[in-house]
């Protein structure tokens, strides 16, 4: 019983779900949630790319140095990407708070400028 490409498909589905929220939801916070979900999907994808079947975590403490290891670089990239995601979310939510302060609504349709 192997997983095949299931993890990749799951991360792609996460991106799709996030895109759906971003495109079709009218609430601004829902859109931010969509962005968060896309970020999560991309992070999951990056870590999945680096997984080597039967490998152990790339940490040598208390561990047999000869075993197979998973690839460390995607994990490093994901760490960076997670913190970037937090920064993005914080900034987006600050904008949402200010939009609410000015318009007293979070509905993207009602904020006429937002339609572009």
């Amino acid at each position, binding site marked *: 019983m192997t997983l095949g490409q299931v993890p990749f498909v799951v991360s792609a589905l996460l991106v799709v779900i996030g895109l759906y929220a971003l495109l079709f939801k009218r609430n601004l916070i829902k859109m931010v949630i969509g962005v968060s979900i896309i970020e999560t999907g991309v992070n999951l994808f990056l870590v999945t790319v680096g997984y080597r079947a039967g490998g152990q975590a790339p940490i040598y403490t208390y561990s047999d140095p000869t075993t197979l290891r998973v690839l460390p670089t995607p994990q490093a990239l994901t760490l960076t990407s997670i913190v970037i995601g937090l*920064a993005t979310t914080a900034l987006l939510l600050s904008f949402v708070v200010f939009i609410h302060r000015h318009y007293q609504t979070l509905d993207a349709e009602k904020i006429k400028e937002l339609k572009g």
Partner: protein
Amino acid sequence: MKKALTVAAFLLVAAFLVVAATTMRPFGEPSHSEMDDYFLVNCQTEVVANNVVTAVVFDYRGFDTLGEATVLFAAVVGVLALFRTVREDER
């Protein structure tokens, strides 16, 4: 019209992404990566750290980390700028 276009674009991107996912190599069999093998083999002698991920984050790819710290700094400065007190006369 606009709605239909959006839906079409969304479906296109969705199909695109799922196709991308299914054309990947099978899960658990990444390509042979010389870069990562180099990290795994030489980390303990070159950087003298047991945690290879930290070694990659701070040594081999330290510049990314600097950029990432910069992103966080930018976010903090941005939030600060948003929540600053604005004098009445500059509105």
